[in-house]
C-alpha cells in the first residue's frame, strides 16, 4: 500500500470493524484538519454536498409509505437504511420559483433548484421554450463565497454525463445568468482538484506561468470592458472577476498531510453518435444506451473525488448532477422490472408512461441512485475527523427537478438530507411541512447550517421564501 497512513487513522479505519474493513483500501489518511489538529477540540469545517438526480419520483416510495412522524423508507430510499439515523426526510416542499418561471419544466426545475429564483428570458437551447439561466446566485455558491474563501477551490461542480451547456444541465450559478460548468470527466476533475497538490518545484513554475497568463487575460478583459455597452460590460467584468478568483487561489498550498486519491482510470467519453456541442440536441440527451454503460464507474469516481476533496479540505462545497434534468439515461446494468433481461428503457421515457406503468422502472433507477448515495455516506463515515468522522460535519442534500415526472409537477418535490452538518440538523426524522411550503426555505436553512448568514432571513427570490424551515434543528 503506497499511501501513508498514520497509526491513528489506520486504527480508526479498522475500528469500524466488519463494515469499514472492506473500504480500508479507500480510506483517506485523515482529513487535513484532523491531522493538523491532532485530536484537538478545534472546530472542523462544515461541508455541503448537493446530489441531484432527475425526472421526478414515485412519492410513496421516496418519502416512505404512511409516514406521519416516524421515518420509514420506501423502495427508493431503502438502500439508505444503514444510515436511517442520519436522514432527515423533507415532505411537502414546493419549488415555487419553478412554478412561477416559464420554460421547459425540467429546465426550470433544475435552474431554480439551488437558486430559488426565476429564470432569465432567453433561449439557451434553441427550439425549446427552455428559458434562460437563473436570475440569481445558487445556494452552494452563496455558501462557497463565505466558507470557500481560503480553500484551494471555492466549490466543486461535478456531473455524471457530459452535456451541451444549457439550462437542462446546469444547477450552480455564481450570479444572475452565470452558470458554472460541471466537470463530467473524472480525470479532468482529478487534475483540477489534486494535480498541483502539494506544490513542488515543477508545479510551482507551471503555476507561475499560469499566473502570468491570467494577468495578461484579466488585463485584456479590463481594457475590453471599457469599450462595451453596459450589459456587455457586466458580462466581461464577471468573467474578469472569475479569472482573478482563479488567480488568487493558484498558489494556495494544500496541507502536506493530504494524500490525494488515485487518479481515476475511467474517463468520460462523448456519447456515441452524439456531439454534445451540437446545438440541435436542444440541450438535453439523446437516448443512447451504449454510451451510458460507464455511468456507474463515473459516478463512483466523481463521488470518490468529492470525498477526497473534502478530506483534504480543498473545498467545502460540492455538487454532483448524477444525470441532467430530463435525462434519458438507460440503466442497462439493472434488471428489467417490466419483464425479463436487462432494463432497456430510458429514464425520461419511463417517467411519461403513466404513473402506474412507469413506477417499476422509476423505482429501479432511483433506488440505484440511492445506493450510490448510501455508499458515499459510508465513505464519509470512514474518514476520521477529531473524535468523529468527516460525515459528522457534512450535510448531503438529495434533490430532483420535479415532484412527479409524468405531469411535470414542481410540488412535493423529493428532498432528503443526510448528516447533521456539525450538529445543526436533528436527523433520523420525517418532517411534513404545511402544503405550499416553498423550497427556498430549505435553501435558507442550508445557508444557516453552514454558518452563512442570510439577508432579511430569506434566500433566493423573496417572493418564494418565508424564512428558514422550522423544526429541523437540533
Amino acid at each position, binding site marked *: 500500500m503506497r499511501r501513508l497512513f498514520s497509526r491513528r487513522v489506520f486504527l480508526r479505519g479498522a475500528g469500524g470493524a466488519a463494515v469499514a474493513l472492506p473500504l480500508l483500501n479507500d480510506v483517506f489518511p485523515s482529513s487535513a484538519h484532523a491531522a493538523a489538529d491532532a485530536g484537538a477540540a478545534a472546530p472542523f469545517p462544515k461541508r455541503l454536498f448537493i446530489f441531484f438526480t432527475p425526472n421526478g419520483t414515485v412519492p410513496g416510495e421516496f418519502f416512505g409509505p404512511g409516514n406521519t412522524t416516524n421515518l420509514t423508507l420506501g423502495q427508493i430510499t431503502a438502500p439508505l437504511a444503514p444510515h436511517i439515523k442520519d436522514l432527515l426526510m423533507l415532505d411537502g416542499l414546493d419549488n415555487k420559483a419553478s*412554478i*412561477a418561471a*416559464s420554460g421547459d419544466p425540467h429546465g426550470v426545475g433544475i435552474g431554480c433548484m439551488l437558486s430559488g429564483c426565476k429564470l432569465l428570458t432567453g433561449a439557451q437551447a*434553441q*427550439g*425549446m*421554450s427552455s428559458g434562460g439561466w437563473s436570475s440569481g446566485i445558487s445556494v452552494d455558491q452563496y455558501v462557497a463565497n463565505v466558507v470557500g474563501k481560503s480553500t484551494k477551490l471555492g466549490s466543486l461542480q461535478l456531473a455524471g454525463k457530459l452535456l451541451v451547456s444549457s439550462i437542462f444541465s446546469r444547477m450552480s450559478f455564481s450570479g444572475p445568468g452565470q452558470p458554472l460548468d460541471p466537470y463530467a470527466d473524472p480525470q479532468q476533475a482529478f487534475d483540477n482538484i489534486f494535480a498541483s497538490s502539494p506544490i513542488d518545484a515543477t508545479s510551482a*513554475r507551471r503555476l507561475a*506561468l499560469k499566473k*502570468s*497568463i*491570467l494577468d*495578461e*487575460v484579466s488585463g*485584456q*478583459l479590463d481594457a*475590453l470592458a471599457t*469599450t*462595451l*455597452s453596459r450589459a456587455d460590460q457586466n458580462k*466581461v467584468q464577471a*468573467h474578469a472577476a472569475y479569472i482573478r478568483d482563479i488567480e488568487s487561489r493558484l498558489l494556495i498550498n494544500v496541507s502536506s498531510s493530504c494524500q490525494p486519491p488515485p487518479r481515476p482510470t475511467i474517463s468520460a467519453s462523448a456519447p456515441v453518435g452524439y456531439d454534445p456541442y451540437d*446545438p*440541435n*440536441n*436542444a440541450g*438535453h*440527451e*439523446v*437516448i443512447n444506451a451504449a454510451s451510458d454503460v460507464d455511468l456507474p464507474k463515473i459516478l463512483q469516481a466523481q463521488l470518490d473525488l468529492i470525498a477526497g476533496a473534502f478530506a483534504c479540505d480543498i473545498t467545502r462545497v460540492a455538487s454532483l448532477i448524477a444525470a441532467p434534468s430530463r435525462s*434519458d439515461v438507460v440503466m442497462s446494468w439493472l434488471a428489467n422490472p417490466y419483464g425479463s433481461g436487462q432494463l432497456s428503457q430510458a429514464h*425520461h*421515457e419511463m417517467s*411519461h*408512461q*403513466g404513473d402506474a406503468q412507469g413506477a417499476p422502472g422509476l423505482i429501479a433507477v432511483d433506488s440505484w441512485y440511492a445506493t450510490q448515495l448510501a455508499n458515499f455516506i459510508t465513505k464519509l463515515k470512514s474518514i476520521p475527523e477529531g473524535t468523529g468522522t468527516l460525515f459528522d460535519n457534512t450535510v448531503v442534500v438529495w434533490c430532483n427537478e420535479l415532484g412527479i415526472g409524468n*405531469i411535470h409537477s414542481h410540488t412535493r418535490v423529493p428532498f432528503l438530507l443526510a448528516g447533521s452538518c456539525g450538529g445543526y440538523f436533528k436527523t433520523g426524522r420525517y418532517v411534513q411541512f404545511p402544503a405550499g411550503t416553498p423550497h427556498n426555505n430549505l435553501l435558507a436553512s442550508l445557508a444557516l447550517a453552514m454558518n452563512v448568514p442570510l439577508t432579511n432571513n430569506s434566500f433566493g427570490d423573496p417572493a418564494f421564501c418565508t424564512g428558514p424551515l422550522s423544526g429541523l434543528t437540533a
Partner: protein
Amino acid sequence: MAISAVTRLGSLYACNVATIGEDGCAQQFITIFGKRAFRRPLTSAEATRFFALYTTGRTGGQFTDGISVVIEMMLQSPYFIYRPESGVAAQAGATAAPVTPYEMATRLSYFIWGSMPDDALFAAADAGALATPAQVTAQVQRMMQDSRAHQVVATFHREWLELASALDAAKAPTMFPNWSPQLASNLYGESSTFVEQVFWGDGNLATLLEAPYTYANQAVAQYYGVTGPAGATYTKTMLDPTQRAGLLTQGTFLASHANPDQTSPVRRGKFVREQLLCQTIPPPPNGIVITPPPYDATTTTRNRFVAHETVALCKSCHTQMDPIGFAFEHYDSVGQWRTMDGPSAVDTSGTLTGTDVDGPVDGAIALMRKLSTSTQVANCVATQWFRFANGRTETDADKCTLVSIEQQFTSSHKDMRALPIAIATSDAFRYRTSNGGSP
C-alpha cells in the same frame, strides 16, 4: 487544447529557427497566430506584451514552452472567446457606422459557416474589399459553395423546424410498438435529407411545404407504406399525394408534435402559428392544469380537447392553435395515416384565422397549399433567417431592413437561397448602432 496545439506546432506554423532565430520565429508566430485567433491584426502594443509573455515561458524552459504560454493566453483571451466589435467611428451626426473590415469578415464567416474567416476573407478584409453590397454578395456566393455552408443551412432548418425534437419523442410502447429510437433517427435523417435536397435543389419554399415526395430509406419507406429503396441511404421517393405534402406531413414533425399516447392539435397548431407565421402565443396562465386530457378510445380528439373551446380561460389562446392542429388529425401520435379517430371517422376540418390566407381548411394538404401561397409565411421565413443570422429577435428599428429582405425574397420567387445574401448585404448586417439594432 494548448498542449495539443504545441505538439502540432509544425502544422500550425513553419519557421526556420536556424535562419531567423528563436526570437524571430516567436515574433512571427505571435503575428500570424494572433491574427487568426483574434480575427484581426494585433496592435503593436499587444505584440510587444505577447513577446514578453513568450520570454517568460522560454526562460528556464524551451522554445516550445514559450510558444505554449502564448497559445494558452490567446485561447483564453476575450478577443478569441468573444466577438467584440468597435466599428469605425461614426461620422458627425450619423447614428450608425460600418463595422470594420475584419469585423465584417467575422460576421460573414460566423453567419455562413459558423466558423472563423478563411484566408480569402482575411485577404478581402486586408484589402478593404468587403465594403459594398456587390463585394459582400460575391463573398457570400463563394462561401455558399463550401461544405461548411451546408452544415449551417442544415443547422438553421433543424432549429427553425425543430427537427431534432423527433429524436427523443417518447411514445406509449403498448399503443405504438413500432416506434423506436431507431425509427426516430431514420425519420430525422429523412427530414434532414429532404430539407438539404430542397434547399440546394430548387430552393423553393413551396417545394419545402408541398412536395409530394420525400427522401426515404428502407425503414422510412416501410413507415409510409410505399415502395422505396432497400438499405439505409435516403433516396427520392414518391409518397401518396392524397396523404402527404411537404415537411409538415412527414413523421419527424408529426411525431414530435404529438403526445405519447395521442395526437396534439395544440402542439401542431402552435408550431404553425409560431414557426411558420411568426406569431406569438402567450404561455398558459399560472395555476391551471396543462396536462392534456387522458387518452380515451371511446371518443375523438376534438371531444377530449373540447374544454379549449368552451372554457373562456382556455379559449382565447387555443382558438389560435387547435383549429389549425385539427387539420393534421389524419396522422396519429407517431405520424402514421389513419382514417378512424376512436369510434368515428377522422375529421380534419380546421380554420385559419388572423392570417392573410384566412378561411376553412380541410386536411393538412389543403392547409399546406394555403400556407405556401401566404405572404405572411414567406415573410416569416425571412424573419427566421434574420434572427438566425443576427443572433437576436427583430425590433421595431429593424422594420426597414426586414421589408427590404422580404422584397428580395419575393422577387426571387421565394428561392430560400436568396435570403442569406439579402441578409448579409442588409444595413443591419453591415453597420452597427449604439443600441445594437438596424441603422
